[in-house]
């Protein structure tokens, strides 16, 4: 009996290993391996076993390398990949200048400012923040505080956060990270008198104010995970205000990583980070199409905090996790063109010396 069992076991192991080896070889078993270069915010989505299962059902195994959206647009060797999936439409436009290709925009996420209840209330008193119906963060008033070097302990009646530091939103490094570029897009619009920056004269006009938003922070992290991870783990002392993707905040809620008193604010105006997939060949095109049309993948994307073509999915996730999101985004402005944004980023980079 025992002997039979061990023979069966060994046999089963052999079969299992053979299957594993065949599957490991990729296309020979009917599965196609597709390689993509993506903005790092989507890494968790592509690593999600549920996402991998759905893709496998469609005969796809997707392998991704994370990279900054600017790098994807300019320096990454696209020849190694079947698709590129940067986190903003300017970067996608730039890639399409290099490669004739279609585009899919399967999901998007607005930029938000995450904070803590005491800070939100302080800024409410200072007239920078309003709370109806969702918390909104008035970018023009904020830029005014920055221009006047207002510090936390300079806010009247501030006993909640009497810190000597300037009031500044924490961001990533604008030289390498898309989320900082999106923040710059918002600030440039406001600094330009509520108009998208379009020409060199306007670029010159807004650059000094924009540079300060970054340089006064001192050192900033390379990737969008950095400051938001600080916000989640180290709290108000380190990061009273942090610029993030809405998806990061919702994703943290889905994973149970938010603490009581963490507050989501929508900048007024804000911009949408449009995660845009550029297929570079037929295999990449299959991924783009699936992400845009497959209900299950769209549902999973919503669970990672992204807004998809069907607003009901995102709304359901937010409701279930009690995240007070803005159901309809009203005050959304366009990002500058790739070249203008690039000029602004280069201008800020120069200020770093």
């Amino acid at each position, binding site marked *: 009996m025992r002997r039979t069992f061990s023979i069966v076991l060994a046999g089963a*192991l052999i079969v299992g290993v053979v299957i594993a080896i065949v599957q490991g070889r990729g296309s020979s078993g009917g599965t196609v391996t597709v390689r993509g270069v993506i903005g790092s915010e989507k890494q968790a989505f592509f690593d999600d076993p549920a996402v991998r299962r759905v893709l496998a059902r469609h005969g796809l195994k997707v392998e991704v390398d994370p990279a900054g959206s600017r790098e994807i647009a300019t320096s990454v060797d696209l020849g190694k990949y079947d698709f590129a999936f940067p986190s903003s439409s300017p970067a996608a436009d730039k890639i399409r200048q290099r490669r004739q290709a279609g585009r899919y925009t399967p999901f998007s996420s607005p930029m938000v400012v995450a904070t803590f209840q005491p800070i939100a209330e302080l800024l409410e008193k200072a007239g920078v923040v309003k709370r109806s119906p969702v918390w909104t963060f008035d970018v023009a008033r904020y830029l005014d505080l920055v221009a006047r070097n207002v510090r936390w302990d300079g806010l009247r009646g501030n006993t909640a956060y009497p810190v000597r*530091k300037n009031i500044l939103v924490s961001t990533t490094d604008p030289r390498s990270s898309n989320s900082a570029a999106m923040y710059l897009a918002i600030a440039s619009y406001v600094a330009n008198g509520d108009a998208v920056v379009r020409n060199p004269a306007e670029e010159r006009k807004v650059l000094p104010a924009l540079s300060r938003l970054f340089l006064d922070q001192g050192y900033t992290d390379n990737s969008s995970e950095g400051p938001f*991870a600080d916000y989640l783990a180290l709290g108000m002392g380190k*990061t009273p205000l942090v610029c993030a993707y809405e998806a990061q905040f919702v994703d943290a809620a889905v994973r149970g990583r938010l603490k009581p008193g963490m507050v989501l604010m929508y900048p007024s105006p804000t911009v949408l980070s449009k995660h845009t997939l550029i297929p570079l060949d037929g295999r990449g095109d299959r991924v783009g199409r699936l992400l845009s049309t497959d209900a299950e993948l769209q549902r999973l994307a919503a669970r990672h905090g992204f807004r998809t073509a069907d607003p009901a999915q995102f709304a359901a996730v937010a409701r279930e996790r009690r995240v007070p999101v803005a159901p309809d985004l009203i005050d959304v402005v366009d990002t500058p063109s790739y070249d203008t944004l690039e000029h602004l980023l280069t201008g800020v980079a120069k200020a770093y010396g």
Partner: protein
Amino acid sequence: MRRRGTAVLAAAVLALAAGCDATGAESGGTLRILASSELADLRPVLAAARKDIGVTVKLDYTGTIDGVQQVVDGTAERAHDAIWFSSNRYLALQPGARAALGPSVKTMASPVVLGLRASVAHGLGWDRTRPTWAAIAAAAGAKRFTYGMTNPVSSNSGFSALVGVTAALADTGAALDTAAVDRVAPKLRGFFAAQRLTSGSSGWLSDTYAADPGRVDGLVNYESVLLTLNASGKLPEPLTLVYPSDGVVTADYPLTLLSSAPRNASDTFRRLTAYLLRPAVQRKIMDATHRRPVVPGVRPSAGFGPEPPELPFPARRQAADALIDAYFNRLRRPSRTVYVLDVSGSMEGSRLASLKSALTALTGADTSLSGRFQRFHDREEVTLLPFSDKPGPPATYVVPERNPGAELARIRNYAGGLRARGGTAIYDSLERAFAVVGEQAAREPDRLTSIVLMSDGESNAGADAGDFRAWYGTRPAALRGVPVFPILFGESATGEMNDLATLTRGRTFDARTQSLSSVFREIRGYQ
């Protein structure tokens, strides 16, 4: 027999499956990491990682500026897949560094704060209200307490403290610029006047304090190191942790993949970082090392003070470098550095040549990043005391604040002229060095003083170890506070050198496993 055959077959199949796994990168894998020396305390956690997820981690340790140098000049990537320093902030300011770095995950956190003996903290009222850095600097300038701190280019805790105190004193609300450094220099000089002990590593500073807590009133160090000291039971009086009210600079230990790393290393990297962020592992790290967890689900233990505000770290390299230059050349108490150098016959040839080049590198000839910050500093008093059968005449140089080049060239010339001959009178020469230090201190007492002893063999002339120990016991207390840093080189008497380091509360450095030049640079952290 047949049953055994099946078992063997099954084992073979399992081994095959495991092999597939390794290449498929679902388990297994090795990550070679260049790390800050203080991460040695993670060994149990990494051993568990090997057991739990099959990832083997090989750590090689380095100091702050040397680590930065290795990433920037490309030597790090030759033997490593990733780096794991206490902070990437200074590194990221270097040209080309960002391109060398791949994905990065912060693994734990510890702010740099001041730990003072409870009675001293109480006397200053700092156990009840949090002082600002300005109040701390004023009390230090008035000699109301003394402290030890690590060297800012060797160790991140010293660098973080330097950035923190300067940013707070500058009080601009924003990141430091070069002008701010000059503006607050007088106050900073007050703060650093109370520094009585320096060190190339946070760990050595902590050990030295534990061995002789009477030596200084406290330490500027990581919260984790201070809590560990308190928990060790070695201190007669616990340290009160003083969190400056205007903020701190926090080490966040980013485990960072090098962009040169091969694809399988990046899979291993992702699995290791995911493992380190597991709540259970974060808790284990917190319990073992007293560093703060960086995932929201893990409740920080009660020993941590409330979350202090974070002071901004410079955004520009010029500002950071100006600060380091100012610290060494203008702000800190200047050093008195004595080199007791063996030029006996056995040093002839390549040994003497490497001694000359090690000394020459410290005179500004090394133009690398580490060379720039580890040269003999402005205001430093350097004495070279060569010996063979008997101690030679000491040659003393004081590097001036203006135009240091000429004096540095004189040191270089002197080093170039060293000749090897004769026997080895280690202890006579060491006694001579202490005598020289005594005379120099009588003229000018306010210097951080230490002695380096470099010999490639056993003492065979003059006093022996026992004679020296007896003589040393009769020296005044001030002289017995001068540490000796023996270098193990060639056929050094390891036991005797270790005894000497213990006796004088110095430490030995090993130039048999690395070059004499790198040892000379490492010792700069302790001078």
